[in-house]
C-alpha cells in the first residue's frame, strides 16, 4: 500500500519538476518569441495586404494604418476620441466598482437586502444587458449619462457576485476573534472582511473592466458622436477602411494597457497575500 503511494507521489513530484523546468524555459524563451510572433503577424499583414490578393479596401497595409493613426494623433482627433471613450468607460467602471462592492457588502450583512437582490442578480447576470440600450436611450437621451449608465448596468453584476463570494468564504474564526477583541461591526468590515475578500473582489473587477470598455464602445457605435467607437462607425459608413483598422489597433492598445495596469495594481494590493508569493 505504502509502495503505491510512494510511486504516485514520486510521479506527481516529477511532474511538478518537469512543469517547473518547462516554465523557466518558457519565460526565457517567451519574452523573445512573443515579440517575434507579434512582429511576424504584422509583417504578414503588410505583405498580404500588398500582395494584390485583397483590395486595400478589405485590408489596408499595416503601414497605411500606422500613418493614419499618426495623422489622427497629430491632428488631435485621436486624443479627443480616446479621452471621451476613456472617460465614459472609466466613470462607468468606477461607479460599478464602488456600487457593486457596497451592494455586495450590504447583501452579505443584511438578510432583507439579500432576499430582495439575490434573484435580481442571479437572473440579471447572464442576461445580455446591452439589449436594454434602446430603453436607456429612451429614458436618458443620447449623451454621456446614458452611455455611462449602460456601462454601469453591465459592469456591476460581476462585481456584486465576486464581493458576495469573497465575503462568504472568509474564515469565520477571523471574524469571531476580531469581535472577541472588541472590534465594532464597522471595524470588522473595513479591517477584516474587505481585505480578506479583496482577492475575489479584484477578480470581479478584472471581469468588469473589459466589459466596461466593450459596452462603452458599443454604446458609442450605436449612438454616434465622439469617441473611438463613434469614430470607427463613421469611418465604416464612409467606406474609410484605414480609419476602421486604425480604430481596432487603437482600441486593442487601450484594452491591453488597461488590463495589464489592473493586473499590476492587483499584485501591488495583494503583496501580503500568498497568491503574490507563489507567482514571483
Amino acid at each position, binding site marked *: 500500500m505504502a509502495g503505491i503511494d510512494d510511486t*504516485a507521489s514520486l*510521479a*506527481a513530484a516529477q*511532474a511538478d519538476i518537469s*512543469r517547473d523546468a518547462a516554465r523557466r524555459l*518558457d519565460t526565457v*524563451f*517567451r519574452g523573445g*518569441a*512573443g*515579440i*517575434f*510572433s*507579434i512582429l511576424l*503577424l504584422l509583417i504578414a499583414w503588410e505583405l498580404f495586404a500588398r500582395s494584390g490578393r485583397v483590395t486595400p479596401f*478589405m485590408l489596408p497595409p499595416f503601414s497605411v494604418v500606422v500613418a493614419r493613426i499618426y495623422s489622427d494623433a497629430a491632428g488631435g482627433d485621436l486624443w479627443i476620441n480616446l479621452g471621451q471613450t476613456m472617460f465614459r468607460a472609466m466613470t462607468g467602471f468606477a461607479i460599478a466598482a464602488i456600487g457593486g462592492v457596497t451592494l455586495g457588502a450590504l447583501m452579505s450583512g443584511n438578510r432583507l437586502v439579500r432576499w*430582495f*437582490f*439575490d*434573484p*435580481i442578480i442571479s*437572473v440579471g447576470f*447572464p*442576461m*445580455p*444587458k*446591452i*439589449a*436594454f*440600450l*434602446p*430603453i436607456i*436611450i*429612451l*429614458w436618458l437621451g443620447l449623451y454621456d449619462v446614458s452611455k455611462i449608465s449602460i456601462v454601469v448596468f453591465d459592469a456591476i453584476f460581476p462585481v456584486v457576485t465576486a464581493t458576495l463570494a469573497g465575503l462568504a468564504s472568509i474564515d469565520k474564526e477571523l471574524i469571531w476573534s476580531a469581535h472577541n477583541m472588541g472590534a465594532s461591526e464597522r471595524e470588522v468590515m473595513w479591517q477584516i472582511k474587505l481585505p480578506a475578500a479583496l482577492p475575489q473582489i479584484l477578480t470581479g473587477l478584472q471581469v468588469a473592466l*473589459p466589459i466596461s*470598455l*466593450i*459596452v462603452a*464602445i*458599443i454604446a458609442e*457605435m*450605436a449612438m454616434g458622436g465622439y469617441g473611438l*467607437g463613434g469614430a*470607427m*462607425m463613421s469611418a*465604416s459608413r464612409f*467606406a474609410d*477602411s484605414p480609419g*476602421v*483598422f486604425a*480604430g*481596432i489597433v487603437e*482600441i*486593442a492598445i487601450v*484594452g*491591453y494597457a*488597461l*488590463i*495589464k495596469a489592473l493586473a499590476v495594481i492587483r499584485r501591488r494590493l495583494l503583496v501580503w497575500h500568498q497568491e503574490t508569493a507563489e507567482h514571483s
Partner: protein
Amino acid sequence: MQAVAQTSFRYLPLLLLAAAWEITARLNLIDSSALPPLSHVASAWVDLVRDGELVSNGAASLYRGAIGLLLAVIVGGGLGIVMARWRLLDVFINPLVELFYPLPKSALIPVTVLWLGFGDGSKILLIFLGCMIPVTIGAYNGARGADQALVWSARSMGAKNLRLMWDVVVPSALPELLNGVRTALALAFILLVSSELIVSQQGFGYLIGYLGSTGSYEGMYAVVLTVAFLGFAADRLYQLLVQWLLSWRE
C-alpha cells in the same frame, strides 16, 4: 410543496418589481411612452408572436449565434488543446492569444461589416472571432493541467498521440474548456444583439431598433425582455448540460 413555497419566496422580489412597474406606469408617474405598463407589453408580445415578426427575426438571430458559437468551440477548443501539447505552436500562438484577449470584441463589428456586409456572414464571423478566445484559453489551461502521470501511463500502455489526446487530455481539459464555453455563450448574445442593433436588416437587435424608431415602445420592451430571458435561459440550460457532461467525474 415546501420546495415550491421556498422557490416562490425566493423569486418574490421579481414579482414585486413587475408589480411596481405596472403600478408606476398605470399611475402615470413616468411618461407612459417611456414606460408602458407591463400588461401592454405582454399583449404587444402576443401580437408580435402572432404576426410572425418575433419568430422570424428570432430564428435569424439564433441561427447566427448558434453557427458562430459552434465554430468557435470547435476551432478554439482544438487550438487550445493542441497548443497545450505542442510546445512550438504554444510559443508562437500564445503571445497572439494574449494580445487579442483584452481586445474589446465590439471593435470588430465595423470590420466584419466591411468584409461581409450587413447579412448573416458578418454576424457569424464576429461571434466566431469574439467567442474563440475564451474557449481557446479554457481548453489550453485545462489541457495543460492534465495530470502528467496519467499521460505517461497511457503512453507506456502504448497509446498513440491522437488516442492519447482523445482519451486522456480532452477529458481532463473538459471542466475548464466548458467554463470557457460558458463565457463564450454570454459573449455570443452580447455581440449578436449589439451588432444587430448597430447594422442589420434582420434579427432581434434589428427588431428592437425598428420598433423603437417607429415609436411602438410596447413592442420594443417586449423584444428586449424576450432577448434578456433567452440569454438567461441559455445559461441555465448550459449549466444543466455541463452537470450532465461532467457526471462521470464523481
